[in-house]
């Protein structure tokens, strides 16, 4: 473990000028970053072939610190940039890391369409139930009744369940983990990257500074403790009553299906179109016509 940590520190972190990072002490994002790096390392991917894109917010800063092709985009748009990269160079491993507000509020439309489209992209969504960087406003995953800087009387709206949303939108692989279950997270992220098709990992994380503090959930340790207590594996949850599941949530793989990937499909139709066009061009060249595209 220690040896592995040292390899990751030396191999994958950008030391020159990028540290200290912006995250608060005890923040869960660092654990997700660690899990991502371990997953990439264990899969033996070349750093040159990994693209890590992000949006805006605390999670958005992750690409700054790691030595891949990194892309810090605009708020909510990470998946759109990732889509362009993937389509232009399908051989690259494209991973997009987002926050809950980033992926499901301002980027909600892009998120469901990326899932529907089924490009071979991995989306990691760090869900800490709040907009941390801007000061703790309510997000699409802030629980009903919770306090935030924009719901000081208690939140009157209901929360999205991100993993279930991804399943419904058509993602090929959807998993949920927490920052407490770190080695489980390594595995989940590894599976998601390996999966051919749009894969999603929702990571339940703590923002004790903005969300925990205002809702008396304690510090980082207490919040992680609650993840430990409230996370139920999918198999176990199936045997529990709705009452027993009331304050709990599932972790594990929610879906893992195989369906055609749009980059593969596109390549197939493109080959057909090319053959046809080449045939036409050959006849044209015979007649002395040149093409612009050559």
């Amino acid at each position, binding site marked *: 473990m220690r040896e592995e940590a040292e390899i990751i520190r030396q191999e994958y972190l950008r030391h020159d000028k990028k540290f200290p990072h912006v995250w608060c002490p005890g923040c869960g994002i660092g654990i997700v970053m660690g899990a991502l790096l371990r997953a990439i390392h264990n899969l033996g991917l070349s750093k040159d072939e990994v693209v890590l894109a992000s949006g805006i917010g605390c999670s958005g800063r992750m690409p700054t610190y790691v030595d891949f092709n990194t*892309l810090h985009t*605009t708020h909510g748009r990470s998946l759109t940039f990732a889509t362009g990269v993937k389509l232009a160079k399908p051989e690259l491993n494209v991973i997009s890391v987002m926050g809950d507000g980033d992926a499901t509020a301002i980027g909600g439309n892009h998120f469901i369409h990326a899932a529907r489209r089924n490009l071979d992209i991995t989306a990691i969504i760090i869900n800490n139930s709040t907009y941390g960087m801007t000061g703790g406003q309510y997000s699409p995953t802030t629980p009903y009744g919770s306090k935030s800087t924009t719901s000081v009387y208690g939140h009157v709206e209901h929360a999205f369940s991100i993993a279930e949303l991804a399943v419904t939108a058509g993602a090929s692989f959807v998993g949920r983990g927490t920052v407490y279950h770190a080695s489980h997270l390594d595995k989940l992220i590894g599976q998601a990257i390996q999966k051919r098709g749009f894969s999603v990992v929702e990571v339940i994380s703590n923002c004790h500074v903005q969300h925990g503090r205002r809702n008396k959930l304690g510090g980082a340790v207490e919040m992680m403790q609650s993840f430990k207590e409230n996370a139920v594996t999918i198999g176990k949850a199936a045997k529990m009553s709705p009452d027993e599941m009331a304050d709990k949530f599932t972790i594990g793989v929610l879906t893992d299906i195989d369906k055609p990937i749009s980059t593969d499909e596109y390549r197939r139709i493109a080959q057909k179109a090319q053959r046809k066009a080449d045939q036409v061009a050959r006849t044209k060249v015979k007649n002395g016509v040149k093409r612009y595209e*050559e």
Partner: protein
Amino acid sequence: MKSESTSRVLLQGNEAVVMGALAAGCRFFAGYPITPASEISELLSLRLPEVGGTFIQMEDEIASMGAVIGASLAGVKSMTATSGPGFSLMQENLGYACVAEVPCVIVNVMRGGPSTGLPTSPSQGDVQMARWGTHGDHPIIVLATSSVSDCFSITIRAFNLSEKYRVPVIILSDEVVAHTRESVALPGPDEIRVVDRIAPSVPPEWYKPYGTNNRGVPDMAAMGSGYRHHVTGLIHDEKGFPTQNPKEIDQFQRRLHEKISKGFGEIQVIKSIMMEDAEVCVIAYGSVARSALRAIKEARNQGIKAGLLQLITLFPFPRKAVDSVLRQCRVAIVPEMNMGQICREVARVNQTGTRIVKHNRVDGQLITPEEILKYLVKV
């Protein structure tokens, strides 16, 4: 659609944009349906796979612009096409392309606005928006097309400038130009000059993605080419990482502007027609320039010494060229399908007190040669 130089082809403006884009090496398009730009999407969805490129229809114009930038960063020449409402949505990521210096071409086939406006009557209402639509003090290049053959050559020029200066280039077309079909003689493939971005030649560990050089335009490495680096919308240092250092910020901001001003000679394109001895002139762009051309010819027939200064480049505003015609002429007529968006630029340049006459049409109808001729006769 034949492409040999000798024969003429019947094309629509939007089709000519597609041919120009493919000729310039465009191999990626992301867009969202909108009239009067949809033919560009439709035709590229047919043509791009044939030439090894990729077409995608995204969920909206915000996403389209994001995908265009992503593809360009991966090393593929990319574009999108839209109209006013979609252009509004693109402003966010257009700013990203400016700050991260990502080459890309955006075609805005203008229709009447604001908002959903006038689908789909011609307008030139998005001129200042093309210049200033995205927030922040940013340089950008805006070109205007006035005819079908323009659509072809200006699209190639747009890609070339975009690649050379690492800046988004906006092509302003309008509903008249886009949908007019005319017979045009296009240059042959051998007569077309195509410019590509310069890739770094140093070893990856020496590469500075936003380093300065005498052109002010950093070499650009494609993602996956071994030059791992960071790209961000935050103001960044030479290595691409966010900076709060006032000196680095200042250097960066100034370089963005200076790289364009260094290229004024090449970027600012105008056409001077019958200007040698002109006493009155028309300053026009887009489809209005065609009406103006007809009007000055008619005026000449009537013995009026009229000339036309057609602006191909709207921004950076071709100040020098406009200044020189304003010094030469008694009166300058500026007809526009808006309330005077370029006229204010002309007035800003006017240092000699030349009389400037505006003619504005905002009823969704094009400006006719007769309208312009009336002014030429009157003044």
